[in-house]
């Protein structure tokens, strides 16, 4: 599995990733899924990651980027296909 940018989140990330792969390949791809069964594990992973992103100052960069990108999209990059 790929590593987390925050080593302290690797364990919970791996648990979530395993759950996701199983759900994705066994249910989602077959069109038989009624809900995202891995959401509780994602919440744990997200909690760890949010803390890590904040500690590294990446959270604000992410937020800015996503806002800027929306503006860029509207301004310059209308879908071309």
């Amino acid at each position: 599995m790929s590593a987390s940018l925050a080593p302290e989140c690797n364990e919970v990330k791996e648990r979530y990733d395993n759950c996701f792969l199983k759900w994705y390949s066994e249910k989602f791809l077959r069109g038989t899924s009624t809900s995202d069964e891995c959401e509780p594990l994602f919440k744990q992973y997200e909690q760890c990651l949010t803390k890590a992103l904040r500690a590294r100052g990446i959270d604000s960069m992410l937020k800015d980027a996503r806002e800027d990108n929306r503006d860029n999209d509207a301004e310059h990059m209308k879908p071309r296909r």
Partner: protein
Amino acid sequence: MVKFYSSNDTYAYPFPAVTLAYFLRYPNPYSTHVLSTDTIARHYDAEKQQLTTVRLHLKRSKLPSAVLKLVPRSLLGASASGDTQSYILEKSVVDMRNGVMDTESRNLEWTGILSVIERQQFRRPTSPAQEDAKFWQGMEGAARRHGFLSFGPGAKVEDNGETTEVTSSVTLLSHVGERWKKRKAAEGATAAGAAEDDQQPQKMGFLKSWTTASLQRSIEGIGLKRAMRSQPNAKEGMKVVLQRMREGGLVAVLEGMRQDREAGLLTYGESKSGPPRRGGDGGAD
């Protein structure tokens, strides 16, 4: 000012396998410079059978020396040789009902210098002949197509002749020399759609000898060349993952990832021997 590049290709693997490989494509032998991958948001719409995923990749990267020459280092936060790390934001939507996956990756840093947006669309082919074949294959065919998806040690992708079409594009946009955040704010105050040409981009001191437009064109051109070079590697990386899936199922893919991750750690900071180290998306390496 925008540069744009696009290409079409076909993977000799079924659509579900390709979408799975997309999520599992890092690390692979062509992308040992990808240091980490985190899922920062995920939403499943059960009614539409659509899965939306936002991921954040961290890549070890090197700025093109041509760009280093053009732009002062203080703007880049890179070392003298251009070594740095960069974050790539990736968004994807898998639409199982319609057999389409749309992806978009972009660099989060240096967007004042160059924004690189890579988009890919993967499609289940829908030619009448194939639809017909699927119909006649009936339940047996459906079961066989899904056979590779079991999460067991024996699970494999079978070569049943199904393919997936992919359209890739790269959009490059340089804002260098523009005080564009300010401009944007001004534009926000006026009515949408106001003519942009009214506001000439302003040059920064170090760019005085260049026209803003020619500098932007140069940087976009450098980015375009690099993006075009990286495309084959991105494709090879996907193919390695798909091949592993076909040979040994998810177990083989995960084992391969483990080895590639170790290889990535070992080569960290060392010379660039071995397979090309380029993953493909975001382009900000």
